[in-house]
């Protein structure tokens, strides 16, 4: 997907997040943080030339659905290493809070929101370098 499409989708999920209460709507709050973060990460990977915004080729992957899927076929670029870890943290909330019976508490919400803020910061820095 084109970088602009990824950023539009990330913004759309951010707007939806603003309508939700993470302590009441924790399931969707988690998923939408993950989705916005994944779109931002994909935009940054395309900007760095690590992945392609079109169909995957033998040399380059296309969009990642998650940090682990498909598995990146190159080293995570240093400028996105932290973003990968932060998105992985959000992804790992799903078994308990989205598919499982737990509900988010203030501490977990704070960590998830900080993780997303870090993703946004690091991906914005990459995208600004490429003047996207």
């Amino acid at each position, binding site marked *: 997907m084109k970088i602009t499409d990824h950023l539009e989708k990330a913004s759309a999920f951010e*707007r*939806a997040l603003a*309508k*939700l209460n993470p302590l009441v*709507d924790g*399931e969707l709050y988690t*998923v939408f943080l993950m*989705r916005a973060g994944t779109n931002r990460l994909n935009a940054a990977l395309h900007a760095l030339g690590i992945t392609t915004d079109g169909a995957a080729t033998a040399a380059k992957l296309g969009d990642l659905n998650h940090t682990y899927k498909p598995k990146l076929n190159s080293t995570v670029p240093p400028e996105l290493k932290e973003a990968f870890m932060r998105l992985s943290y959000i992804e790992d909330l799903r078994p308990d809070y989205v598919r499982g019976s737990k509900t988010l508490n203030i501490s977990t919400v704070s960590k998830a929101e900080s993780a997303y803020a870090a993703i946004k910061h690091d991906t914005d820095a990459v995208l600004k370098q490429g003047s996207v």
Partner: protein
Amino acid sequence: MTPAEHLAKAQVVLASLYKLTFPGDYLAIVDGAMIAGYHLGNALLHEHGVLPDDAHANTPSKLERPIDSLPPAIQMAFRAFAELERLRFEYVRSPSRYDAGLERRVWDLLKEMQQVKRRAETI
């Protein structure tokens, strides 16, 4: 999770979805509908003995068996769930633009899944 726990989660997710509106939140609603579908679908799988309470299918495509091999009473719900999965691929995971028919389609598919659940409860 037990069927009752799944149903409770489904109700929470549906309540969250009702806070969002078409067309602006179309991506989030399509994506969130899959989460409601996950809980409604797995409640049915547990109730009809397809999967034990400690096993789950994330999506219809990961069910490892065709929908028409499921108990007849729940096939319609899983066809609706499969259509929600297709919509997620088309809109959330691909370049997309909102179209006017999407709103009715998503709410109808969720209603179909809930109706199967309610019919199962009366048996």
